[in-house]
């Protein structure tokens, strides 16, 4: 199927992008850079989940997972940022 191939290419590309974000997560230099990289990975993961659902022909299930993931990722990003705010050691 042609569209399956198209989705697979997109999926692989997105996974490569998400992994390239790990560069930023490991390199830093500040802790907020790491959080930013994690946030981008989280947003990409939503799309990766939905694309995977399309490939598996079970979108309605993966949409729910993606939405839960979106909410949890967003809240954890905000709470972590709030938790780290104002701590002197930004170069973690």
């Amino acid at each position: 199927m042609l569209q399956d191939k198209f989705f697979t290419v997109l999926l692989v590309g997105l996974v490569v992008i998400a992994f390239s974000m790990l560069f930023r997560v490991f390199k830093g230099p500040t802790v907020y850079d790491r959080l930013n990289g994690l946030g981008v990975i989280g947003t990409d993961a939503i799309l990766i989940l939905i694309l995977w659902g399309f490939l598996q022909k079970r979108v309605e299930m993966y949409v729910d997972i993606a939405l839960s993931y979106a909410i949890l990722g967003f809240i954890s990003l905000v709470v972590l940022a709030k938790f780290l705010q104002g701590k002197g050691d930004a170069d973690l």
Partner: protein
Amino acid sequence: MRILAIFFLMGGFFFTTVAALGVIRFPDFYTRLHAAGKGDTLGIALSITGLALYHGFNLVSLKLMFIVFFIFLANPIGTHVLSGAAYKTGIRPWTGKGE
């Protein structure tokens, strides 16, 4: 409809790639935040809209549109919180005028 969907998906993928490139290339934290906050929001939103178009109009595409709406609300807030936290911690922005 399919062609429009594929157009949206390609556009979304392009912007996501640019966002990732920007996060790697830009010189300091705040400029990286620009790339992540805008490129990712539009990239993912476009892609999911494309998938919703591809799927046709039913409950699943409505849910997909709700995810798009959530990303539009949540991503700027995340960017704002990160930049605010960094600003209050005392990270100064890079101005390009030598250091």
